[in-house]
């Protein structure tokens, strides 16, 4: 059974059809990439899945549940995490605090207990801290642990964004252009992490990406979008050799 399915979704902004008639499924444990030229609607689809936008039509099914209209703050406790294209970290907090905020959906403590910082709250805090430290170790962020995000270089921030999403312990991870702004080495590292996340943590990944090398290296299946519609869907080689896709990217002589 697929872990996620988009059924004929569409998104209209006023008169603009950003996404139209898109349907796809994602199998558990796979890395599913969405590629396409700018303005194709890739991030719009992400924003629909993470419920920042509500689809104008169609349905989104996650783990058998229709999530098309749930409020945005409820996707985290259902196990969906996302990173943002332009990094939406909490700039005035430390790296550790950012990761701990990622643990919020697992927090069970009551309001009054927090007022008094009862031992139950302390225990919960230590448990969250341990989980966050696991993520820090996984991503090698130890030396930045107590630094303010505002002071960290861009490449590190991208990794922190990934780490914060991992703290949710997601079943589905949405990565929005994970390699944008990274140099060749950092992109390679990102590729290794994506592989590790898939293999060690068993997380399903949907990824929007422009870097074809990265897409080819990690993806199980690829979907190509242009102008809000699907051009092709298949393995990376299939899609990259599809004539429609080539035409959308490079342009061709009118037939």
């Amino acid at each position: 059974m697929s872990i996620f399915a988009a059924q004929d979704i569409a998104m209209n902004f006023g008169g603009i059809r950003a996404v139209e008639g898109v349907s796809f499924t994602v199998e558990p444990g796979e890395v599913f990439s969405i590629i396409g030229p700018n303005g194709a609607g890739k991030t719009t689809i992400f924003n629909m899945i993470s419920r920042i936008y509500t689809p104008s039509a169609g349905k989104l099914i996650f783990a058998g549940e229709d999530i098309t209209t749930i409020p945005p703050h409820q996707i985290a406790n259902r196990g969906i995490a996302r990173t943002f294209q332009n990094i939406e970290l909490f700039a005035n907090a430390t790296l550790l605090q950012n990761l701990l905020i990622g643990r919020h959906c697992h927090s069970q403590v009551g309001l009054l207990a927090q007022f008094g910082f009862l031992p139950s709250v302390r225990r919960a805090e230590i448990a969250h801290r341990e989980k966050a430290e696991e993520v820090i170790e996984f991503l090698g962020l130890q030396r930045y642990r107590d630094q303010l995000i505002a002071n960290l270089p861009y490449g590190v921030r991208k990794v922190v964004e990934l780490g914060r999403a991992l703290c949710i312990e997601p079943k589905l991870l949405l990565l929005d252009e994970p390699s944008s702004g990274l140099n060749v080495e950092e992109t390679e590292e990102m590729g290794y992490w994506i592989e590790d996340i898939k293999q060690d943590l068993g997380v399903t990944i949907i990824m929007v990406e422009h870097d074809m090398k990265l897409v080819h290296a990690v993806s199980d299946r690829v979907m190509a979008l242009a102008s809000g519609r699907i051009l092709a869907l298949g393995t990376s080689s299939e899609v990259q050799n599809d004539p429609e896709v080539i035409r959308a990217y490079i342009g061709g002589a009118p037939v």
Partner: protein
Amino acid sequence: MEDVLRLLQLSINGAATGCIYGLIALGFVLIYKATEMVNFAQGEIMMLGGFIAYTLVGKFGMNYWLGSGLAVLITAAFGYALDALVLRRVIGQPQFAVVMLTLGLAFIFRAGAGIAWGYDSVAFNTPFTNKLVKFGGDVVLGQDNLSIIFGTVLLCGVLYLFFSRTRLGIAMQASSQNQLAAYYMGIPVRRVFSLIWAISAGVAAVAAILLVPVQMVDVNSGIVGFKAFAAAVLGGFGSIPGALVGGVLVGIVEQMAGYYLPTGFQEVTSNIVLLAVLILRPQGLFGQVIRKRV
């Protein structure tokens, strides 16, 4: 007939007061649209403009039009200097910080005016003081209120042409949305900002001068700034026509409430209207809903 006349009278009075609110609100919005700073000292700048006009026309005896024009220019220059010397230093700081800064400036201006001109109310002669205009024999309106409305409409027309037909207006928009990119495009951002402040101060001075036939100038005149601010928010901060509509709305609601409701409810009515509008339309009447694209 009596009631209709009464209603008309109240509406004109309200519209006139509202125009003053609107002009000050306009000053707020101009600065905000360009620099994203909120100038809580706008009311005090209006007060200073009024005092300067009084000095020129009332004390030195200059011709009304000449003296007023000069007062507007002097106030505009003051606004320019304010930005160049003080506000420039705080570019890049969060909006809240700038609000507090202008609040501090408001206090300084008020105290400064008290030292320079004393704490008594002053006024000077205008061509519109105490004159009436008759319409159709029954309707009698004060020229003072009408001059406020007319002057406001004229000024707004001029400003509209300025912003929609000149390069400076576009440069101002660019500088407000992304200062760094505006620099790269060769826009002298700092000078553009200072010019905005100058225009804004000039508009405040015009408001002060228009107000003289109706109300005397004194150190506390600037308190109208808060009402004007509320009016700007009501209209939707960032919208120039919104500022005026908001101002006139607040002015008329106040007049109506002052007449039809028992005393002391005037203030509360405009506040309730304001809250109601904001709850229903959190971005104000004409404001744009701005959402971040992630």
